[in-house]
């Protein structure tokens, strides 16, 4: 790795901690970002000459803070300032700061920064875009590409979102236990949204956008390092790892979706699976189940099965039942119906999803599953109606293509059936 690439990697990994600490000093997002930017420029100039500091994050916070204070002084006194070399030798100040970085208010800083992006007035996609810009430090161009919009449109969106959160006035005092838990839950939900945005694009043709998924995993791990005893954060990290492990097997060469059952499981990332399963194991010890842990456990059951037919569907059914209790939702019942169809047959599953029709009338997967169940029950005409509805609701070309493949099969089968009927 070249020196610049190495420094880039360090700056990237230090960013969430550094910007959030700078935000605590300046209490203003733009200024915190500007200070971090300035510190990065000085790092690029300084580190190749003087070598990397012992604690890069502490160095960046210190230099970033000084750079802004320098500016203020320069403007007020118009006097020459000491050279950068002096700042680069932080010694005691750096050690002192590094020590404070480990303390608990530091983790509140990072959660605050992420929480600011979760402003309830912001639509989900804007929350994600803002977090990617501010916390992860992705460029507007990179974010625009991930969301398949133009750079100028994304620029506008982020500026507007920033304006809104600037007025939100998130308090800087150390939060109480309940407030901290609430912030953590909001941040976890945002990270999950970010992952899902990468996992199944809500528009356009690209189906798996790996950088968004990787960024979500990076943020989840960061959160877990800051809150090592939160079983739901273990569950969230495990869930993302277990789902992302399947990414290499999810699309075929043409970009069509390969369903879980048909995926080549040898392509699954074994390291991610092992880490995800280890985190579930850790979370279980706490005996405080939550939606992320249960969803991770479901993904874990799939990961354990070497072949689709080895899947323990009864266990998955049980886990979905638990999830329904924790977080009742028609989408969860719909997912449970898949397990029920394996354990009790398509008839039982169809009975289970029929009452959901009105709530899920705009949901692609409802009609996709309904069509598949009807097809298994040899009710081809009804299956075709359901598949047509699914295609009309498909979010991506890959989803539509998948359903079209089912329809083609129905047409082929009905053609061969009628031929068979004619010859008998």
């Amino acid at each position, binding site marked *: *790795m070249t020196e610049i690439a190495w420094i880039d*990697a*360090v700056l*990237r*990994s230090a960013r969430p901690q550094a910007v959030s600490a700078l935000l605590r000093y300046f209490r203003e997002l733009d200024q915190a970002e500007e200070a971090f930017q300035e510190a990065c420029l000085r790092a690029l100039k300084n580190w190749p000459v003087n070598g990397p500091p012992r604690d890069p994050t502490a160095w960046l916070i210190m230099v970033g803070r000084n750079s802004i204070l320098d500016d203020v002084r320069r403007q007020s006194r118009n006097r020459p300032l000491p050279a950068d070399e002096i700042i680069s030798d932080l010694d005691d100040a750096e050690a002192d700061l590094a020590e404070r970085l*480990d303390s608990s208010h530091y983790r509140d800083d990072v959660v605050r920064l992420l929480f600011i992006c979760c402003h309830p007035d912001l639509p989900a996609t804007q929350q994600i875009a803002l977090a990617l810009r501010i916390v992860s430090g992705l460029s507007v161009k990179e974010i625009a590409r991930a969301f398949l919009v133009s750079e100028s449109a994304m620029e506008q969106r982020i500026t507007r979102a920033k304006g809104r959160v600037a007025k939100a006035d998130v308090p800087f005092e150390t939060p109480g236990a309940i407030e901290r838990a609430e912030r953590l839950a909001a941040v976890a939900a945002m990270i999950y949204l970010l992952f899902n945005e990468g996992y199944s694009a809500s528009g356009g043709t690209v189906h798996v956008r790996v950088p968004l998924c*990787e960024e979500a995993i*990076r943020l989840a*791990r*960061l959160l*877990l*390092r800051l809150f*090592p*005893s939160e079983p739901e954060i*273990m569950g969230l*990290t495990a869930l993302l790892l277990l789902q992302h492990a399947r990414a290499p097997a999810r699309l075929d060469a043409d970009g069509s979706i390969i369903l879980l059952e048909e995926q080549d499981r040898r392509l699954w990332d074994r*390291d991610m699976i*092992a*880490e995800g399963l*280890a*985190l579930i*194991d*850790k979370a279980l*010890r706490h005996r405080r189940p939550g939606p992320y842990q249960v969803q991770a456990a479901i993904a874990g059951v799939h990961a354990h099965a070497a072949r689709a037919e080895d899947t323990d569907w009864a266990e998955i059914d049980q886990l979905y039942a638990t999830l329904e209790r924790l977080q009742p939702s028609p989408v969860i019942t719909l997912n449970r119906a898949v397990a029920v169809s394996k354990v009790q047959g398509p008839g039982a599953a169809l009975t289970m999803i029929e009452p959901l029709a009105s709530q899920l009338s705009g949901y692609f997967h409802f009609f996709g599953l309904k069509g598949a169940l009807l097809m298994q029950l040899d009710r081809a005409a009804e299956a075709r109606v359901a598949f047509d509805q699914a295609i009309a609701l498909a979010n991506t070309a890959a989803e539509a293509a998948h359903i079209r493949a089912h329809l083609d099969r129905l047409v082929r089968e009905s053609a061969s059936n009628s031929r068979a009927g004619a010859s008998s």
Partner: protein
Amino acid sequence: MLYAILCYHDEAEVNSWPKEKDDAVLAKRAVVTQKLAAQGKLGPVARLMPTTAATTVRSGREPWIIDGPFAETKEQLLGFYIVDCATLEEALEAARELGRDETGALEVRPLRVFMPGSRTA
């Protein structure tokens, strides 16, 4: 003399490496380990999972379990065991037993990679 070579790095940074970069580092290191293996000098090699997967047992009469890695700076790394357990609970029980009635701590961290090595004696 047997030596342990312990690897340190910023895990947030290493975990952010793209796969190609990670593979390139491993390939570069494999050249060295293969040379050592050919000379019969390579013992077990392990790559640990991230510290987020770790659990720490504080030794004592009533061992105390903490999520996360061993993070104190006043104690030093003195040794390690590798155990093959079906669950984390089983590994933690082993650590509890090992440290019973002692002071200090035992961090239990799953392995990501394990290679037994070429050294036979």
